[in-house]
């Protein structure tokens, strides 16, 4: 990956990532154990160690365009194997949070939309409601025809619930969302 360093030094993203994740990436040695173990690097242009390098060199908002940001599967292999115990998975979380906050998430699959809808059903019902979430996601991404063969089979096998669950303490969940997460409105 080519890292573009702009002349004007941007410290903001590196500081923001550290503020959200609580992780200091400066101790990264670039040993690349994270990138060797990462299951998606065969598919991505940018590797976890590149993200760390970018943060160290204040690459700034260009990091949001790294394909890894929304292709990272949060498997935590990077963190597990890091000799400096840098929680790279938490750094990736922080980058996604900031990408959404800065309207800078333009990635295939629209994982950010999926996350929003998932949490919306949790806020509404206290638990996930797969059918509602899948339908809304398909509407939002115009992917109506994808996996249409799966749905009747899942219904038939009782692998998906038609109605949401009403057994959870919804007031409790709603309170958690209202108090701590005003960006997700239900």
């Amino acid at each position, binding site marked *: 990956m080519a890292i573009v360093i702009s002349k004007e030094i941007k410290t903001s993203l590196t500081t923001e990532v550290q503020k*959200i*994740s*609580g992780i200091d990436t400066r101790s990264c040695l670039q040993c690349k154990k994270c990138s060797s173990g990462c*299951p998606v690097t*065969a*598919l991505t242009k940018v590797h976890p160690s590149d993200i760390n390098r970018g943060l160290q060199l204040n690459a700034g908002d260009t990091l949001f365009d790294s394909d890894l940001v*929304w*292709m990272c*599967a*949060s*498997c*935590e*292999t990077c*963190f*597990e194997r890091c000799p400096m115990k840098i929680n790279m*998975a938490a750094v990736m*979380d922080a980058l*996604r*949070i900031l990408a*959404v906050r800065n309207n800078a998430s333009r990635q*295939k*699959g*629209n*994982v*950010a939309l*999926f*996350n*929003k809808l*998932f*949490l919306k059903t*949790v806020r509404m019902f*206290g*638990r*996930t409601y*797969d059918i509602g979430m*899948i339908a809304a*996601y398909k509407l939002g991404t115009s992917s109506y025809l*994808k996996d249409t063969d*799966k749905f009747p*089979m*899942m219904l038939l*096998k*009782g*692998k*998906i*619930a038609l109605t949401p*669950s009403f057994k*959870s*303490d*919804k007031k*409790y*969940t709603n*309170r*958690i*969302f209202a*108090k*701590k*997460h005003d*960006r*997700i409105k239900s």
Partner: protein
Amino acid sequence: MKYAYYPGCSADSTARDQYLSVNEVAKALNIELSELKGWTCCGSTPAHHTDKNLSIALPAANLLMAKKTKLDMVVFCAACYNRMKAANHEIKTNPKIRKDIAAVLGEDYDGSVKVHHFVEVLLKDIGAKKLQDAFSHSLDGLKVASYYGCLLVRPHDITQFDDPENPVSIDKLVTIMGGESVDWPHKVECCGGGFALTRTDIVLELSNSILNMAKAAGAQCMAVACPMCQINLDMRQGDINETKKRNYNMPVVYITQLLGLCLGVSPKKLGMDKCVVSPRPIIELVRTAE
């Protein structure tokens, strides 16, 4: 033996078979699983993708419910297990987060509820001898690839489940049941997890490599302990065969379904009719190996 049981959202939906088989196995072994009343979603990956405090407050709400029962918590879903352990860890090590979470929940939670995976309960609290005594059937002649995935074993500092690179807990259970647990390198590789809907291409790529390795190791089936791994490896197998030009026919079952069969529970009660790749060959083999 009594535990507060947290089934997780998938138990009502894509992993109904996991819920059924855990309950059947617990019943047969006299493990009392008392389901937490009013449990809520742990937030899973979308929560930690979105807001750190939210990703801790959601599991902490359930841990607080468990604390009031004065029981240890038992979880089967690897993702829920991971989030519960992560919440406990954050609350115990970060006083600011503990304070923030207390403000959200309206009550202080100290991170003290012990969280166990059902596999840990079987190995530590029941043990090999009692399990063997309870089995009426055996997996004699069955080669099983034990698959752990990511969230049970990583990060080890937080989950404390077995060895993070070469876990053996599920392998042990397979051996106790009389089966052969194959030696293979993809035990803790990622299946693509939460990308099932959003980045199916990644799931197909990663799950293909796992199935490929299990097949090469001579496994006749895979035993899993995570609802996301199960559905990706099982329901997506047809898509993998089609797009990657493969011909897998690998049943992917929950370890509790194999245990249930050995305990003499009917396949229907274990939800084995819900598997997409037919587990019929395993069921027949267990019956003949009686």
